[in-house]
C-alpha cells in the first residue's frame, strides 16, 4: 500500500505536464463557477436587503394612548409572518414627517397629537405581504395598514428570475467544466495507456493499477481546490476593494469574503476531490477492460 501511495505521488511529478494541465483546467473551471456563484449570491443578498427595506406601516387608532398602542404591538408581533414590529411614537412619527418634508419653519408648532402611534413591521416572507396586511387589519386597535405590495411583487419576481438564471447558468458552466476536465484527464490517461498495458501484461490486478491513479487524482483535486480557493479569495477581495472605491457603486454592499469563506472552502475542496478522484477512476476504467 505504501508503495502504491508513493507511486501515485511520483506519477504526478513524472507526468508533470499533464498533471499541470489537469490542475489548470480544474482551477479555471472552479474559479469561473465560483465567481459566478459569488456574483449571484451578492445580487441575491442585495435584493433581499432591498426587499427587507420594504416594510409595512401599521397605524394605531388615534384614541389609544401609548400604553394601549404598545399592547397592540404585542398582538402584531404574534401575527403569522411578522418578523418584527418596531414601535414609533407619535412624537417620532412627527419628527420623521418634518424631516421628510425637508424641515423648515412651516411645520414648527405642529402638535404630536396630530400624528398616530405606529409600528414599522418587517415580514418573514414578503411574498405573503397581501395576506399579512389583511390579518393585521383584523387586529383591534389597528386603524390603517400601509404596504407597497406592488414593490414586494417586483422584488419577488426579480429574486425568482435571479434564481432561475443562476441555476441555469451554473448548470451549463458545470457541464462545460466537467466535459473539459474529463477530457483533460482522459488525455492524461491516454498518455499512459502503454504503462497500463504493461501493468496488465505483468498480471496486475485492477485494484493495483487503479490505486496510484486514485492517489494522483486525489492530490490533483486537492491542489486544484486549494489553488482555486486562494485565487478566488484574492480576486474577490480585489474586486470588492475596487467596487467600494467607485462612488456610483456605493449601493452595492459587497458581502465580505470571510462570510462565505467556509462554504467556499468546503465547496472547492469537495469539488476538487470529486473531480480528481472520480475523473481519474472513471477515465481509467476503459483501459482496465480485460
Amino acid at each position, binding site marked *: 500500500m505504501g*508503495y502504491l501511495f508513493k507511486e501515485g505521488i511520483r506519477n504526478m511529478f*513524472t507526468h508533470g505536464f499533464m498533471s499541470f494541465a489537469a490542475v489548470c483546467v480544474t482551477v479555471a473551471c472552479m474559479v469561473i463557477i465560483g465567481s459566478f456563484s459569488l456574483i449571484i449570491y451578492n445580487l441575491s443578498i442585495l435584493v433581499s436587503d432591498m426587499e427587507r427595506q420594504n416594510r409595512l406601516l401599521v397605524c394605531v387608532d388615534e384614541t389609544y394612548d401609548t400604553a394601549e398602542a404598545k399592547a397592540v404591538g404585542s398582538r402584531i408581533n404574534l401575527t403569522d409572518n411578522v418578523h418584527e414590529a418596531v414601535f414609533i411614537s407619535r412624537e417620532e412619527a412627527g419628527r420623521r414627517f418634518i424631516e421628510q418634508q425637508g424641515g423648515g419653519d412651516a411645520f414648527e408648532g405642529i402638535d404630536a397629537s396630530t400624528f398616530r402611534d405606529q409600528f414599522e413591521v418587517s415580514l418573514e416572507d414578503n411574498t405573503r405581504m397581501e395576506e399579512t396586511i389583511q390579518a393585521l387589519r383584523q387586529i383591534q386597535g389597528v386603524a390603517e395598514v400601509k404596504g407597497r405590495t406592488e414593490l414586494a411583487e417586483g422584488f419577488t419576481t426579480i429574486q425568482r428570475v435571479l434564481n432561475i438564471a443562476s441555476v441555469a447558468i451554473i448548470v451549463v458552466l458545470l457541464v462545460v467544466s466537467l466535459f473539459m476536465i474529463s477530457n483533460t484527464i482522459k488525455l492524461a490517461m491516454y498518455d499512459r495507456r*502503454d*504503462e497500463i*498495458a*504493461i*501493468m*496488465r*501484461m*505483468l*498480471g*496486475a*490486478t*485492477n485494484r*493495483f493499477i487503479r490505486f496510484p491513479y486514485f492517489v494522483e487524482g486525489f492530490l490533483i483535486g486537492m491542489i486544484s481546490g486549494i489553488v482555486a480557493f486562494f485565487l478566488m479569495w484574492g480576486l474577490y477581495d480585489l474586486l470588492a476593494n475596487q467596487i467600494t472605491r467607485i462612488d456610483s457603486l456605493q449601493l452595492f454592499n459587497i458581502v465580505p469574503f470571510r462570510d462565505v469563506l467556509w462554504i467556499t472552502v468546503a465547496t472547492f475542496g469537495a469539488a476538487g476531490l470529486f473531480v480528481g478522484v472520480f475523473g481519474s477512476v472513471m477515465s481509467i476504467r476503459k483501459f482496465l477492460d*480485460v
Partner: protein
Amino acid sequence: MIDFRNVTKVYEAGNRALEGVDLHIDDGEFVFLVGPSGSGKSTIIKLLTAELEPTSGSIEINGYKLETIKKRQIPYMRRTVGVIFQDFRLIENKTVFENVAYGMRVVGASGKEIKTRVPYVLDLVGLENRGRRLPHELSGGEQQRVAIARALVNNPAMIVADEPTGNLDPQRSYEIMMLLERINALGTTVMVVTHERELVNRFTKRVIAINEGKVINDGMDGYYINEET
C-alpha cells in the same frame, strides 16, 4: 502447459483469424511459432494472455481454463506467463532495476524479496552492472534483456516471446535466442513467435507453422514456409 482444442477466432469485423487450431505444448518445451504476417500468430498470443476470448473451442494455460475463468482470476493467470515483445515495452522513466522490480511489485512481493531476486535475474540476463540505467541509455539488445528479466522475475511457468529479435541485428538476435534457450534449460517453457527463418533454422527445436489461421506443420524440421505463398 498450453492446450488449444479446435480453437476458432473470428473478429467482430468478420475477419477469421484462427480456424480449428489444435495446439499442445508441454511444460519445459522450447517451441517456435512461425508464420507470415497476418497468419494468426498475434491472435494466438492475445488468446494466451486472455486479451481475447476464442469464438469457439477451448484453451487451457498452466491449469487455467479460459472458457470458465473469472475476470478477477485473469491477472493471476497472466502471472504464470511472462511475455516479451519486439518493442520491449519498458517504462521509460524507471531504471532497469525498477522495471524488473515492477514485475514483482505487481504480485505484492516485499522489498526484501525484490532486493534479493532482481539482482539475481539481472545477473542471469547479463545486466548485473546496468541496474541504475534508464532504458534509453541501453542498446536494443540490452533493453530486450531487461524485458526478459522482467518476464522472468516472478519465475513464470512459461515465457512467450513475440518477435523478440525483430528490432535487433543478427548477432544480438542470436544472443537473445541463446539466452532464451538457457532460460528453457532451467525449466521454463519457452514459446518464441517469429517469422525469421534463418534464426529458427539455427536451432533444432519444435516448430509450429501457421498460415491463414491454421496449423500447417508441427515438427522438428525447421521453418519452411515461403512468406510469398
